[in-house]
């Protein structure tokens, strides 16, 4: 039984990491109705920039601030050169544009910083917390726990930011209909700039945590693929959905891999979250917390 809980907790904690990526998606989707496929590339770009700056003997804090500024600049550039010319285009065009964007950012990141795999040390050891394993026999990684804590702080901060400011109502209007939002005087460009800058910040935090865990490498871009089932499970528009979805996906994925995987040849982590999310959608087509779509003629 102890083993079961250990797997479960490890899964939940890795689910938090998925939630972080999903959060970046949700922010942009809520704000502009854009399904931003480039979020994974942004994560990669942020982590690579940070590590690259650290290699130039900048201190941790300075590198963090510089990377944050770079990410905000990237967000603003995306708004200016990709989204602004595509206002009021169908969603699928915007989605394709973000896939193009992800190619661009991946190329840029590797062009500037090189493609070699790098380690990233945040000063937190990835080792079991001794007193918990002594008392209960369950190993919980200190790093995972820290990551969960950081994610919690981030979510609360974002929730406050988006619920206590006027921005949230503007956001909802923009996501609903670009043209109508412009017509009632919402400063679309400012709103998008803010949201993309925030998404850049989330990408930075995600990139640091994932980079510290798995090393900073091209595979970080695939993290985005892990976040997609989280998104459809939780609902595209919902921040709590991203969190709960991440926890469910993380836990079931690990449990399935450990307890079912050996019977079917292993490696089911790649598709199991998708199939799970798919099953779930058959019951609730708009995800757990997604907005119910009312369709009229």
């Amino acid at each position: 039984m102890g083993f079961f809980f250990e797997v479960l907790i490890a899964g939940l904690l890795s689910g938090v990491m998925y939630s972080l990526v999903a959060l970046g998606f949700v922010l942009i989707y809520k704000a502009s109705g854009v399904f931003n496929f480039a979020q994974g590339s942004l994560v990669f770009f942020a982590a690579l920039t940070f590590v690259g700056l650290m290699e130039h003997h900048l201190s941790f804090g300075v590198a963090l601030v510089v990377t944050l500024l770079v990410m905000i600049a990237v967000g603003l550039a995306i708004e200016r050169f990709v989204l602004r010319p595509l206002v009021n285009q169908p969603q699928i065009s915007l989605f394709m544009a973000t896939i193009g964007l992800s190619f661009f950012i991946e190329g840029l990141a590797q062009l500037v910083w090189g493609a070699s795999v790098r380690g990233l040390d945040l000063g937190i050891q990835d080792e079991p917390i001794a007193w918990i394993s002594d008392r209960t026999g369950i190993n919980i990684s200190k790093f995972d726990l820290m990551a969960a804590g950081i994610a919690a702080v981030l979510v609360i901060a974002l929730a406050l930011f988006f619920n206590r400011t006027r921005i949230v109502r503007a956001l909802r209007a923009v996501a609903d209909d670009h043209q109508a939002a412009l017509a009632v005087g919402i400063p679309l460009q400012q709103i998008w700039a803010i949201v993309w800058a925030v998404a850049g910040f989330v990408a930075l935090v995600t990139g640091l945590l994932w980079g510290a865990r798995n090393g900073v490498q091209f595979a970080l871009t695939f993290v985005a693929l892990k976040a997609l089932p989280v998104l459809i499970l939780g609902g595209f528009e919902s921040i709590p959905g991203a969190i709960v979805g991440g926890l469910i996906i993380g836990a079931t994925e690990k449990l399935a891999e450990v307890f079912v995987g050996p019977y079917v040849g292993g490696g089911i982590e790649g598709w199991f979250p998708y199939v799970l999310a798919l099953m779930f959608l058959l019951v609730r087509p708009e995800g757990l917390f997604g907005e119910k779509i009312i369709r009229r003629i």
Partner: protein
Amino acid sequence: MLYREAGQFKETYAADSAIFPILQDRIGVALIVLVAFVVIPLVASPYLFSAILIPCLILALAALGLNLLTGYAGQLSLGAAAFMAVGAFMSYNFALRVPHIPLLLTFVGGGLSAAAVGILFGLPSLRIRGFYLAVATLAAQFFILWCLTKVGWFTNDNPSGVITAQAIVIAGYTFDSPQEKYLLVLSIVTVMAVAAKNMVRGNVGRQWMAIRDMDVAAEVIGIRPMRSKLLAFAISSFYCGVAGALFAYAYLGTVEPEAYSLDLSFRILFMIIIGGIGTVMGAFLGSAFIVMIPIALSTFVEFLDGTLHLGVPSSVSSNLELMVFGALIIFFLIVEPYGLARIWQITKEKLRLWPFPH
């Protein structure tokens, strides 16, 4: 002046519903067919066949399949390459396990298997839509490729996972040279493209378009959404399956799961977006564009490197290619969101009036 329908009267219903109602169109199509079937095989080099023409045609067929589903029936799919993989592997297995089966029939078998899998993964579309469905189709992509890698039956328990495809032998004749393969691919693609064009002009296509434009309204006027959507998934997957089999047999020469990655799915999606969503011609234009861009880019970088002696390392040039590719896609979406097929439409409008401005 050159391109207009004035003076061409239709006297029968058959003439009215002809696939190319205007004489100039018929001449144009006849010319294209003549060039594709006669001129190109006579003049093109083997490199041109195997590096550009064959992949262009095969991927155009896959893009056509995806376009039927996404462009006409409005169901966004990110799993086209997985259905191609089903087609390739099932063709291989039909050829391997059914004695004396004609190769063309194995392609059909591969396509039908892909269609069956397509219906299975199309079932969620009855319940979910939009991006939720798109992400759900990713399940097909990952699950199918996992199955093909893990289940030994598909690869005939080949330890390397890379199988050499059987030689293309049809009615005792071996299609061996790039030229012969090109002609085979071209014939199959032509037949299927004409079939697709007729399908989207007819009852089925109109049902799909009604579903795409507003599914509730389509249901109200008596279109059965379940039947139409599943038919779209089946036919689209059939096209992708045949394309996948051709991809393995006529282009790669091997059957391997890695060839049908998510990357290929995205490239096929790019083809229909850049070519023009909801057009048959767009699939071909988009495929030509996406296949040739990387080749053109690398040739260009090599040329620059050769003339200027910059000594650009290959990692830099490959990253530059990635960036230019991404930028071009964004650029095209911005300047022509309806795709290359739309540019052709505009050209035709201009030709009608030429040389007069109005």
